[in-house]
C-alpha cells in the first residue's frame, strides 16, 4: 500500500504518525486474538514428538493422525457420538427457542396481554440467572422424572435458557413493522394466526436468523448443566472434552483436534451473523 490513500472526501490523505500507531495497535490486538487459534490448530496436526518440545517447534510434519484418533478412538469411543448428540440437542433447542420465543414476542407486541409489561421484564430477567444456581434443583427434578442423561432434558433446559434472548431481540423487530401492513391483511380476510405466520414472521427474518445463531452458540458451548444432567448416552462434546481434564498428561494432539471440532462450526456461523451481532448480544440496548 502506498503512503497516501483516498479519504472519504476524495482528497489525498497523507498518513500521519497517529495512523501508524492505530494500525500497530489494531494489529497487535488481532495477533493476540488469533494466536491461541493458531496454537489449537497447529497442535492438532503435530506429531506427538513435536508437541512437548521446548522451545516450541514451529516447523513440523503435518499429520492427521490426531483427528482419526479423536474421532474414533480417544477415550474409548472417540468424539463422534458426542458430536452427534451436540448437533441434535443444539438443533432441537434452537428451533424450539426461536419458535416459542417469536410466538411470545408477537403475542406481547400486538395483543393486550394481562400484565404484559411485567411479563416482558420477567422474561428478560431470566437471562441473568446464573446456571450454577440451577444445577442442584434441575438435577433433582430430572432425576425425579427419570430424565437424567436424556436428550429431552437438555433440549428443554437450553430452550428455556434461550427464550429471553429470542423474545427480547425479536420484539424489537416486530415493533418496527408498520401496523398498517397487518391491518391490510386483516381486511383481506386473514385470521390473526395467519397474519402472524404469513405476514409478520417473514418480515422479521433477519431477527429469526440472528437469534437462531446466538441460541445455537449458547446451546453448543454450554458445559456446566450438560455435565450435571448427562452421563454418556446423551452427553455433548463439552462433556466429553471435560472428562479428560485432570488426567491429561500426554494426549494433547487428539485433545486439540476435539477442540477444533468444538470451535469450527461456530466460527462458520460467526461469518454469517456479523451485521446483527451487536443487537443480539446486548438485547437491543445497543443497535
Amino acid at each position: 500500500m502506498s503512503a497516501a490513500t483516498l479519504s472519504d472526501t476524495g482528497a489525498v490523505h497523507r498518513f500521519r504518525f497517529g495512523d501508524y500507531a492505530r494500525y500497530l495497535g489494531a494489529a497487535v490486538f488481532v495477533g493476540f486474538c488469533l494466536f491461541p487459534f493458531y496454537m489449537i490448530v497447529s497442535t492438532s496436526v503435530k506429531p506427538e514428538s513435536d508437541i512437548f518440545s521446548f522451545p516450541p517447534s514451529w516447523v513440523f510434519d503435518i499429520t492427521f493422525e490426531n483427528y482419526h484418533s479423536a474421532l474414533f478412538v480417544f477415550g474409548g469411543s472417540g468424539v463422534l457420538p458426542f458430536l452427534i448428540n451436540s448437533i441434535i440437542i443444539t438443533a432441537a433447542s434452537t428451533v424450539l427457542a426461536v419458535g416459542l420465543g417469536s410466538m411470545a414476542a408477537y403475542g406481547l407486541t400486538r395483543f393486550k396481554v394481562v400484565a404484559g409489561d411485567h411479563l416482558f421484564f420477567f422474561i428478560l430477567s431470566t437471562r441473568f440467572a446464573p446456571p450454577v444456581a440451577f444445577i442442584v434443583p434441575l438435577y433433582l427434578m430430572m432425576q425425579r422424572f427419570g430424565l437424567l442423561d436424556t436428550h429431552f432434558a437438555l433440549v428443554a433446559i437450553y430452550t428455556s435458557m434461550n427464550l429471553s434472548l429470542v423474545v427480547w431481540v425479536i420484539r424489537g423487530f416486530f415493533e418496527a413493522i408498520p401496523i398498517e401492513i397487518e391491518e391490510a391483511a386483516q381486511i383481506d380476510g386473514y385470521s390473526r394466526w395467519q397474519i402472524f405466520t404469513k405476514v409478520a414472521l417473514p418480515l422479521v427474518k433477519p431477527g429469526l436468523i440472528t437469534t437462531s445463531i446466538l441460541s445455537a452458540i449458547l446451546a453448543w458451548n454450554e458445559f456446566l448443566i450438560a455435565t450435571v444432567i448427562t452421563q454418556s448416552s446423551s452427553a455433548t462434546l463439552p462433556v466429553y472434552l471435560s472428562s479428560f481434564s485432570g488426567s491429561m498428561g500426554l494426549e494433547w494432539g487428539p485433545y486439540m483436534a476435539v477442540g477444533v471440532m468444538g470451535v469450527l462450526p461456530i466460527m462458520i456461523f460467526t461469518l454469517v451473523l456479523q451485521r446483527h451481532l451487536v443487537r443480539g448480544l446486548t438485547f437491543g440496548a445497543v443497535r
Partner: protein
Amino acid sequence: MSQKSEARWTATVLVSPAVLVLVLLNIFPIAFAVYISLRHWSLASPNPPRFAGDFNFAELLVDDRFFNSLWVSGTFVTLGVVIQLLLGFALAFVFNSKLRGLDTLRRLSLLPIMTMPLVVGLVWFYMLNENFGVINWFVTLFGSERLPFLTERTLAMLSIVLADVWQWTPFVTLVIFAALQSLPEYVFEAGRMDGLTEREIFFRITLPMLRPAIIVVLIIRAIDAFRMIELIFMMTKGGPGGATEVLPWYIYTTGFLSLDLGYAAAMAVTMIILVTLAAQVFVRQIADPGKN
C-alpha cells in the same frame, strides 16, 4: 367467533407455551432451590432429607471458604472487567478511525467471543504450561526463568484473568464500536462550530453519549464473569490452595463432589440474590435508556 374472543384466544396460544417453559424451568427451580436450601439434603448420607431451618445459611456466615470464594470472585470480576473495559474502549476508537483494512482486522478480532469457553480454558492451560508452554518460551526470550503460571497463587489468578480478557475484550470493543458508529455526525460538527477542542468534544459530547452503551456492557460483563466456571474447570480446579476458587466452582464442588445439596442450594440462593440486584440496574437501563 367474535373478533375480540379470537384475539384473546390467539394471544393465549402465542404467549403461554413460552411462559409455561419459563415457569417450569426457571421459576420452579428457583423456588425448589429455596426449599432444598432449608433442608439437610446430602446424597452422601443414608438419611432422607429433613428440615433444617436456617441451618445452611447460618453455616454460610461462619464458612471461611465461602467468604474466600466471594473474595476470589470479586477479584476476578473486578480485575477482568476493568481491563476489558479499558482495552476494549481504546480499541473501539482505534477501529472507528476510517483507515483502510481496519474493518477486516476488526472482524477477525470477534472470533474469541464465539469460542467454546471450555476450549478457551484448554488452550490457555496448554499455553501456560510451566514446562513446555509457549508463553513460558516468550518469558525465557526476555531472559527470565520459566514461571509457574498455574501453580502460584497470584499468577494463577492473573492467568485466569488473562484468558477471560482474551475472550471478552472483543465483545466490549464490538459494543462500544457499534455505539460510536451510531452517533450522529452533526453533533460533532455542531461542537466544532462552537469552537470546542477535540478534547472538549470527547469529554463533553462523545463520552456522555456513549454512557448507556458503557453501562450495558459493564453489567453484562460483570454478571457473566461472576458465573464463569469453565476456565476454572480446565485451568486450575480452584487451586492452588483456593486462590482461584470462585463462588460457582465452590457451589459445583459442594453439590456434585461433596454431594451436600442443601448447602450448595443455600449458596445458589445467595448468588441469585446478588445477581438479581445487579440485573435490576440493567433492566432499568433497557426499559428507560433516556434516564440514568
